[in-house]
């Protein structure tokens, strides 16, 4: 039997979370709970090597995505005959029309897809779309969900009940099904990218709202809030200057997880043929392009390149979310 101390009450923390979220959770929340539970609080002040790796990966990715046009890589829709595999139309059998798609061939480090695109360039341009969708949706989600959560948690009472009811209703449809149906019916109305951002933002609102509200409830009870009120500070000022700064770390941590969930959801929608159009590169699109190759046993690397970018990004985001949570979580700090 282990004799050591329990590594902090992650389980109780989760139980608290589940209780504060009223037991009506969904994919997002449970995922969030699962990710955060079992994490040991960082006792050291310094960032570990894992956190640095995660930061380097994300920053590098963002820089590459921003600088994509001036990087020495092929254009996103540029095709190369050297990596093109001609495919007979309407046939399940791929005929090799010369050329190769495998990595390290003729200066194409990651190889190419069946349309003759260079995969490295595809992945970097894809990062643009995937990151815009991921961060865009969550930024919107924070704006709406965060505001609602802050107001509900601060004022309580009737306003809070209405807000919680509203968030509950949004949670009542499984996230992916909601995003899927919204994207499906909205397409053709606005630009594809915006539809995705809006649909995925909507699924992130209730999660961010609930977390913000739960944290606001706790922080609004603290002495310095009472002190501010006693000094005659306006509600708005207390909310933004006293409560919000303390709630931000928790929101930031959940937001990072949220970006990861949204990136994965974007890829899933693309796979289902509902996301961005074919000319817009995205990681989900790369996987979708390589799918036939994989199931026919021709080559798997196209799918794996797309998958690797998604996996590493989600891993980095999840890891950073944990680090942020462990560093700022009041429950785990020795007060």
């Amino acid at each position, binding site marked *: 039997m282990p004799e050591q101390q329990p*590594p902090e009450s992650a389980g109780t923390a989760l139980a608290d979370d589940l209780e504060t979220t009223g037991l009506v959770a969904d994919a997002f929340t449970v995922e969030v709970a*699962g990710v955060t539970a079992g994490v040991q609080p960082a006792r050291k002040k310094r960032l570990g090597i894992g956190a640095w790796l995660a930061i380097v990966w994300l920053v590098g990715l963002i820089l590459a995505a921003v600088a994509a046009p001036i990087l020495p890589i092929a254009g996103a829709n540029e095709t190369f005959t050297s990596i093109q595999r001609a495919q007979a139309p309407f046939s399940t059998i791929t005929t090799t029309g010369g050329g190769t798609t495998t990595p390290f061939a003729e200066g194409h480090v990651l190889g190419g897809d069946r349309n003759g695109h260079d995969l490295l360039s595809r992945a970097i341009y894809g990062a643009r779309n995937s990151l815009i969708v991921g961060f865009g949706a969550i930024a919107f989600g924070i704006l709406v969900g965060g505001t609602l959560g802050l107001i509900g948690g601060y004022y309580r009472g009737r306003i809070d009940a209405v807000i919680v009811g509203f968030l509950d209703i949004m949670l009542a449809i499984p996230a992916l099904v909601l995003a899927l149906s919204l994207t499906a019916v909205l397409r053709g109305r606005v630009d594809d990218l915006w539809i995705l951002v809006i649909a995925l933002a909507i699924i992130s609102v209730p999660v961010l709202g609930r977390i913000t509200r739960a944290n606001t409830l706790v922080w609004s009870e603290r002495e310095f809030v009472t002190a501010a009120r006693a000094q005659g500070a306006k509600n708005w000022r207390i909310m933004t200057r006293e409560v919000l700064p303390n709630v931000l770390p928790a929101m930031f941590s959940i937001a990072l997880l949220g970006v990861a969930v949204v990136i994965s959801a974007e*890829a899933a929608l693309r796979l289902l043929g509902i996301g961005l159009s074919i000319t817009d590169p995205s990681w989900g699109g790369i996987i979708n392009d390589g*799918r036939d190759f994989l199931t026919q046993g021709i080559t798997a690397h196209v799918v794996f390149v797309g998958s690797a970018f998604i996996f590493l990004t989600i891993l980095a985001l999840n890891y950073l979310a944990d680090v942020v949570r462990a560093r700022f979580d009041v429950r785990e700090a020795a007060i």
Partner: protein
Amino acid sequence: MDALATLLGYLLIVVVVLGVLAVLALAVGTRAGRRKLLQLVVVLLVVTFFSFSLLHLTPGDPARTQKPFATEEQLKPIREEIGLNEPFLVQYKDWLFNFVQGDFGRDYSTNLPVQDSIGKQLGVSLQLIFYAQFLALALAIPLGIFAAYKAGTWFDKSANSIAFGAIAIPPFVVAFVLIFYLAVQLGWFPTQQYVAFGTDPAEHFKHMFLPALSLAVAQIAIYMRLLRSDMIQTLQEDFITMAKAKGLTNRRILWRHALRPSSFTLLTAAALNFGALIGGAVVIEFVFQLPGMGLGLIQSVSTRQYTAVQAYVALIAVAFVLFNAFVDGVYSVLDPRIRHARAAAA
């Protein structure tokens, strides 16, 4: 016919419905319960209203979208059938009445009633979700117990790291990796298609294994970590020391004494996880071409059969809401702390 799993699936539905009814019956007795009930009704109304309005969010004439090559003459009965000539709220009322009675409208690309296809698909989806959940719990519980028992050792640490990585892999990526190595390269499993249990049980499980495992991987990681952290706490309790002092074997202490008090969070998470599984199942059914509700939904979306989309979304949402209400109700019956907390809050 299509035996065990479907049967279990339907049994689950029956249990949930009965459970909801039982919880309702209990709830009418208390003030908090009545409020909860009212909330449930409101949520159901809003959710069905949202599903209903999906058809009207689509650009253009809903009848024309669903049957693009029909003449104006042919569209008339369709408009009549959907009720497009009525005021919006009347349409919703009619749609809801039909929905409750199991009339989900028609798929205009095949001219078949939507409920017929959903009836066939429901079993497949339930099987997939059931297998995935079973697989996840069957693997996660022993792993979680062992990790807690070996807390701090290399096994625990590596299991934790692997679990952390596994959570970051979307189910469809797991699916492609499994397809490539186990189906394409080794040829142990088929890459696609569905075989009914009644047709050939062995083939059935062969076809369902990869989809179920793809869905289960992330859940295994989540469940394992939940159980591990609760279990570590339980193992510090006095009654465990007592059990050790009595000379019970480790195995007996872990499985008989420590597991039950540690499994509350795990079971809550597992119960609430059905929503995640429904979402994941949509993608997995698509990748493996399993004719479940997820694939049905995708097909309706891509053929722009929005009447069918309404029905799918409404059905999934209603099932999800009722299931959560059921879990909630069961907990307030099982765990008096929640009941009292609610009563105090009300």
